[in-house]
């Protein structure tokens, strides 16, 4: 039974060589040595099948096939094990100190006034308001006369308003945009007018010669003081948080009647009274009111048919309260240590 013995010898020899194969290339060599189509030891041995007597052939064939399968599967198994070891070794050498910081790209920051402006605009856009703008260098007429601010009103003083000439000022409010809009189109009007305004104050912790406003104007049939209250209440709950309450108290502006100062509940002390709210539990935020009929007279609206409300808020003030800024110059110094917090 020479053939069968030969097969056994091949098998034993394979076992010895397999044990010595330490890497994948040796395994490939082994595969070639035993199983290569032309010169593999087992391949050649199997070709001797025809030389064997017919009665020995089935046993030999069976044994040879079994050996072939064994070599193939053991090589594959060994290869998989080696691949695993290599992968682990590579992972070991490639390992990083992942506690180092990431290569963080520099991302710019929005100015707090822009952030607050966008937030307020979005609240009103969602309520169906349209955004309007207009020039910052305005006519005295649009800035004062058309708003029922008489020629003797103190806000017209050169100590309060920047003048270019008798007829041209730096607008002290964005209300002129309301006038321009009303002169251009009939009711219904639902607009907000964001923009830059000027008052003749030196820059200090609580004043600035330039600041930013959003004024709102609604003129339609059946608009009431209650609608103004509800609108401002919604604004403050969305901007400052759902718990914020809004309070209107009587005040005076030449272009509204009734007029109101609008307060929000102090978040810092939960309305118990603190330094921020001057121990009142309320923080004054803006002026508002029902549009004075004299304003409608100026733009030619029918006062019997239409009513409306208007409000004007300082974006800077809203940003300061929301983000806890207590010094106005911070808004205009452009110090990165401040701006990078937004």
């Amino acid at each position: 039974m020479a053939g069968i013995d030969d097969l056994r010898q091949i098998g034993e020899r394979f076992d010895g060589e397999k044990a010595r194969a330490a890497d994948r290339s040796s395994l490939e060599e082994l595969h070639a040595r035993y199983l290569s189509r032309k010169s593999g030891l087992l391949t050649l041995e199997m070709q001797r099948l025809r030389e064997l007597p017919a009665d020995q052939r089935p046993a030999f064939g069976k044994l040879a096939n079994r050996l072939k399968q064994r070599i193939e599967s053991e090589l594959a198994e060994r290869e998989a094990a080696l691949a695993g070891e290599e992968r682990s070794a590579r992972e070991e050498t490639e390992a990083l100190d992942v506690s180092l910081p990431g290569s963080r790209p520099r991302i710019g920051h929005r100015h707090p006034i822009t952030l607050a402006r966008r937030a307020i605009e979005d609240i009103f856009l969602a309520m169906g308001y349209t955004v309007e703008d207009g020039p910052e260098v305005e006519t005295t007429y649009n800035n004062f006369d058309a708003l029922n601010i008489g020629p003797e009103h103190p806000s017209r003083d050169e100590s309060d308003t920047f003048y270019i000439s008798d007829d041209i000022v730096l607008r002290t409010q964005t209300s002129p945009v309301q006038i321009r809009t009303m002169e251009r189109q009939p009711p219904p009007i639902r607009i907000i007018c964001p923009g830059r305004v000027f008052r003749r104050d030196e820059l200090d912790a609580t004043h600035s010669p330039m600041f930013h406003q959003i004024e709102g104007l609604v003129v339609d049939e059946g608009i009431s003081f209650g609608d103004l209250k509800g609108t401002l209440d919604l604004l403050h709950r969305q901007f400052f948080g759902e718990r914020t309450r809004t309070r209107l108290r009587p005040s005076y502006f030449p272009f509204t009647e009734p007029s109101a100062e609008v307060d929000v509940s102090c978040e810092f002390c939960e309305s118990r009274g603190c330094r921020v709210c001057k121990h009142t539990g309320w923080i004054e935020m803006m002026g508002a009111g029902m549009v004075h009929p004299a304003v409608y007279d100026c733009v030619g609206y029918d006062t019997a048919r239409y009513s409306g409300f208007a409000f004007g808020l300082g974006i800077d003030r809203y940003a300061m309260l929301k983000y806890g800024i207590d010094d106005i110059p911070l808004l205009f110094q452009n110090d990165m240590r401040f701006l990078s917090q937004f």
Partner: protein
Amino acid sequence: MKISIQWLRDFLDLPEAPRAVGERLTLAGLAVDGVARAGSDTVLELDVTANRGDCLSHIGVARELSAIYDVDIRSPEAAAAEGSAAMDDVFAIAIEDAGLCRRYCGRYISGVRVGPSPEWLVRRLEAVGIRSVNNVADATNYVLMELGHPLHAFDADTLDGSRIVVRRAAAGETLRTIDGDERRLDDTTLVIADARRAVALAGIMGGLDTEISDRTTNVLLESAWFDPVSVRKTAKRIRLGTEASYRFERGADVAMAATALERAAGLIIELAGGVALRGVIDVYPAPIEPDRIALRRGRIAEHLGAAVPDAEVERVFRRLGFEPRVSADGWTVRTPSHRHDIAREEDLIEEIARHHGYERFPATLPVWSGQGRQLPSHAGETHVRDTLAGLGYTETCSIAFGNRDTQAAFAPGVEPVEIRNPLSEDAPILRTSLVPSVLGSIQWNLNRGLRDVALYEIAKVYPTSGEKRRLVMAATGAADAPRIHQSTVETDFFRLKGEVEALLSRFDLVLAESTDALPPYLHPGRSVRLGAVASVGELHAEWESRFKFRQKICVAEIDIEHVLERGLRAIATAPIPKYPAVRRDLSLLVARRTPYRDVVEAVHRAGIAELTDVFPFDRLERGPFSASFYSLAVTLVFQSGERTLTDSEVQGFAERVLAELRKIGIELRS
């Protein structure tokens, strides 16, 4: 305005403690800014709005409280004991300008003894911030604070001719006022004069020569009504504001003139003795009639959002001194003489709202259909801001005023808008360029130890031709945050140019590059214009040193108004190419004076439709070639929408490109 709680109690019973009274007043429109103890008294600090001159007194505040608490008011005693001699036998009063002085009441008190005031009076005046002078002056000040009506006491014996004439000053006339200043008057100034000269600035301040002194025995007491505008103009012109002018400017109560006179006369006699001559001289040529205004019941609910019961409407009006008379659809309301701010129906509705309580009207939202819109520029602006944030630029906001010389240097030839009354002579114009501001901001941060800064601002500039929005970008130092994994890239001309190109690439713009008409503040060899829209460059050495910068600063100025007007390009997608693109690299020798732009233009002149891109990938200034050349490697990308390009086709394209390049002296580097 300081209000004493004890003083208020003379007029009405207060059912609540001072702090609560303050809160009620605040919610009725008289903002109480402070509540302070003053001995046994409590003083409220009131911020009275300009329309409510009637509340610059204790009686005025008491009137509001009588409506708030629905309680009655006690009127102060106003009567003076009279002697038998008649005033008009010894004194005369005449108004020459009845437009500026509607009423003038006078009382003559003889035989007073001027001296210190009693303790209670001194303390009351002190509580509301007034220093005691003498019993006569204190009496007038007391009535001022109590009834809100300014009075003036003259030493009657110093009045020449025993007469008062209310007239305009003559040009060049002068008057030494009680504060000792010599005032030059003109014919817009209303004065109180005696037979010879001006003795008081009407409604503002009395004269020094005729004031009450220790020797005074006879007093002429004035209680008048002066035109608010005239008092305001005069007070402003001579820069003298007094308790009296403050009240006349806001409109005094013409009816109160007589009452206040009697109250003060009674008080003077009580404090300083003497007797009032019989009768009052009351010159009131054209009595001011109260307004009657119609108020429709339905309008209240329409305007405020909820109806108010009739009884409440009438209660509020009566308590405030209005007289409501029922009409067919509401009321006709007579306004009291102390209110100058009530002219229309809406003004009456406000009184109801104020005293019924703003908090009692429901908070509703207007009901409407339709949709709101952002500004047309909004989408583009948002894209710009988002991109800039992504590029690492932080937004700044600078005050819009500028220095004349600096602005002229950064925006030469642009006529600025001048402010007539600037805060500072150093910044008297509106900015015509945003560049100085952003450089100032860079400087501010570098001076505080930062090194890597990238800032932008979107704001208006204001040439006389019309205000326009601009974008300015400025960057210096590393373009990325510091990192240990690889070295950072310093911001330079090409970095900023690329950022601006990326920023503008989505807009509907054609950006032809040019180096003509570069801004003078940029390095002439390191700056470029992109169309008429942007200029980009490194800061000129002169400005580098003027701002004391010790590192490279890159600046871009962009006409964002124009960019946003053009708007974002409409998106219309093209199909993804089916056939592969083929790249062909060319290594070229280019004459030193030939800019890259000429190379690209020559490549395009070959007119190859399949050429989809051309970009440089290497540039060598020196090498194994003549010093008058540089080596430039460019990549050409070819692609066909119809088939895969063959090698020989691509080779043919390259030959055609090279032929064009040769025409401008560019050779293939061998």
